[in-house]
Each structure stands twice: as structure tokens, then as C-alpha cells.
């Protein structure tokens, strides 16, 4: 008899299941993607790979003006930019971005740095002319001809991100 009293008393004594959010904030989960904080302006070479990979078209990179700009309200926080960055200079915070009354942009101006390192050439014995470097190049500065065994670099176009050297399976690209 009075079976129902047991859950009644249990519910009376138990703490409420509601999370008291604004008063008690939980720690974010491990590897959570909250928002893109910005770039390390010392490390960034403004190659623009992040802008090309961004599925939401939220990033704009100007190589001449050395400006990196993120539309934080268009960003879907997939963190593809951070993963594809050859310099690993984009930081992702696990805390979510707070709601705002106005849409703001996160614009970071680059530090004046010395001319970035560019690939000087290839180790002809190691290179197999696979063309992976040409595909990895964000500026399309590398052209590879497999049949002619030709590798050439347009130094004007090259941003100096060294993504080619990183992607090369034979590690045949020599830095300046």
C-alpha cells in the first residue's frame, strides 16, 4: 500500500535535475569546438588556405594588406581552417561565443615579418613528380609535368606557406 509515496519522497529529497546554467557554468567537453579565437599573428604567412577550405566562406585573407578576417557569425566552427593551416596558427576555443546585439567581425592584422621562406627547388633524385605539391599549393604556384619530369615554381605567386614541403611524400622539396 502507498507505493506512490516512495517516489514522492524520493523526488522531494533529491536535487533538481535542472542545470543552474547562468549561476553554475559547466566545464566544456574535451576537444569541444566552441569558437575560432583568431590567429597567431607572428606565425601566420597569410597563404589563404583557411579561406579556401572554409565551407561557410567566413574567412577572408588579404595577402598584400596582410589582413585575416573572420565573420564570426557566419562561421560554423567546423575547425577545418585550424586543421588545414600549414602553420597551425589558428586557435580554437572550447567555450562558445556569447550572443551579441550586433554582428562583429574578428579582423587581425599581420605583424611585419621578414620575407617568408620559399621552396628553392627539389631534390631531383628523391622526387617522383607525383604532383601532390602542386595540388597542395593554395596559390597554384607549382606546376609539375610528369611525362617531361619537370617541376617549376612561380616565385611571384608563392606565399611561402611551405604546404608543398609538408605534403611531399618523398620530402624532396628544399627550403631556401
Amino acid at each position, binding site marked *: 500500500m502507498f507505493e506512490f509515496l516512495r517516489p514522492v519522497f524520493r523526488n522531494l529529497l533529491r536535487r533538481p535535475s535542472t542545470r543552474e546554467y547562468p549561476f553554475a557554468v559547466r566545464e566544456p567537453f574535451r576537444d569541444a569546438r566552441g569558437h575560432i579565437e583568431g590567429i597567431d599573428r607572428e606565425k601566420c604567412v597569410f597563404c589563404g588556405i583557411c579561406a579556401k577550405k572554409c565551407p561557410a*566562406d567566413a574567412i577572408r585573407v588579404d595577402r598584400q594588406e596582410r589582413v585575416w578576417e573572420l565573420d564570426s557569425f*557566419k562561421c560554423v566552427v567546423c575547425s577545418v581552417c585550424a586543421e588545414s593551416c600549414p602553420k597551425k596558427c589558428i586557435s580554437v576555443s572550447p567555450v562558445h561565443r556569447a550572443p551579441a546585439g*550586433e554582428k562583429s567581425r574578428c579582423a587581425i592584422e599581420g605583424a611585419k615579418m621578414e620575407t617568408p621562406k620559399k621552396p628553392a627547388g627539389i631534390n631531383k633524385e628523391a622526387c617522383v613528380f607525383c604532383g601532390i605539391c602542386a595540388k597542395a599549393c593554395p596559390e597554384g604556384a607549382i606546376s609539375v609535368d610528369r611525362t617531361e619530369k619537370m617541376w617549376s615554381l612561380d616565385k611571384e605567386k608563392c606565399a611561402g606557406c611551405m604546404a608543398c614541403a609538408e605534403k611531399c611524400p618523398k620530402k624532396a622539396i628544399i627550403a631556401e
Partner: protein
Amino acid sequence: MKLIQKAAGKSPWIIHYDCNSCNGCDIEILASLTPIYDAERFGVVNVGNPKHADILIVSGSVNYRSRRVLENIWREMPGPKVVIAVGACACTGGIFSDCYNIIGGVDKVLPVDIYVPGCAPKPEAILDAVVRATEKLVHKREELAARQAEHVAKLRAKDPKGGRNAEKQ
């Protein structure tokens, strides 16, 4: 009158409209209304009738079909009202902003008061937005009351015996 003003700020009712969303944001909005996050602690009640609502929560980008419905809901709401855009799509159009049928974010159609970024935003972010919206609603109500009082004072100055006073005499 002041009591009503204050009480209204303590219980803003919301209406939720899924404009063109993928349902990710909608699930988070409903999660923030469940007992775990419990937005009703702030006096919020999710209603189905725009005539009862003070806050409009929109998820998803606006397309040519949903634009009319969205504007209709907004027009049916009594003023003052607050619009919250939840998610990257509602803020700017998100990954769909270049699609042929998309107008853009909610702010292309309605005046948006609070933007919640994220894809999808966390329920915590939506709770933050709701709290900010209540503050904004109280502020808008006060502004409206002040404007009304100013208007009445102007009419009185023009015609001291006009209006309600004339009826009484």
C-alpha cells in the same frame, strides 16, 4: 501601470519559427526549454500564437517561400517585440548564403535584436540570448511608455481641455 511593466519583463512569452533550418538549431532551442536547461525559470513560455508572444526566436536562413510567413508572424505580434536569430544561418545565411533560393539572414527581412552564433549554438548560448532579450524587452517597453507620456503631454499642452478631460466635463 509600473507593476504591469515590471511583471511583463519577468514573463516574456516566446514564439519559435523554423524558417529554413536543418532542425539542428530547433533541437537546441527545444533542449533549452526542457527541464535540464529549463528556460521557463526566466518566465519564458513557448506559445503557438504570435498574438501572445513578445519574443520571436527564428532559426535558419530566410528563403523566398518562408519570407512571407516570417513577416506575417512578426506583424501579428504585439509591440514592443524582440527578435532573436539563432544559429549561423539565421545570422548571415551561413553555409547556404550563396544558394539560389536564399535571401540571407533574418536581418535582411526583420530588425534583429540579438544574434546567437554557432552551428548549432549550445543551449547555454540560447539561454544567454533569452535573458538578454528580456532585458531588451523591458528597455523597449520603458521607451515606449516614455514616448507615449511625451505624446500625451504634447496634446495636453496644445488643448488642455481636450481628450479625456473634455469627456469628463
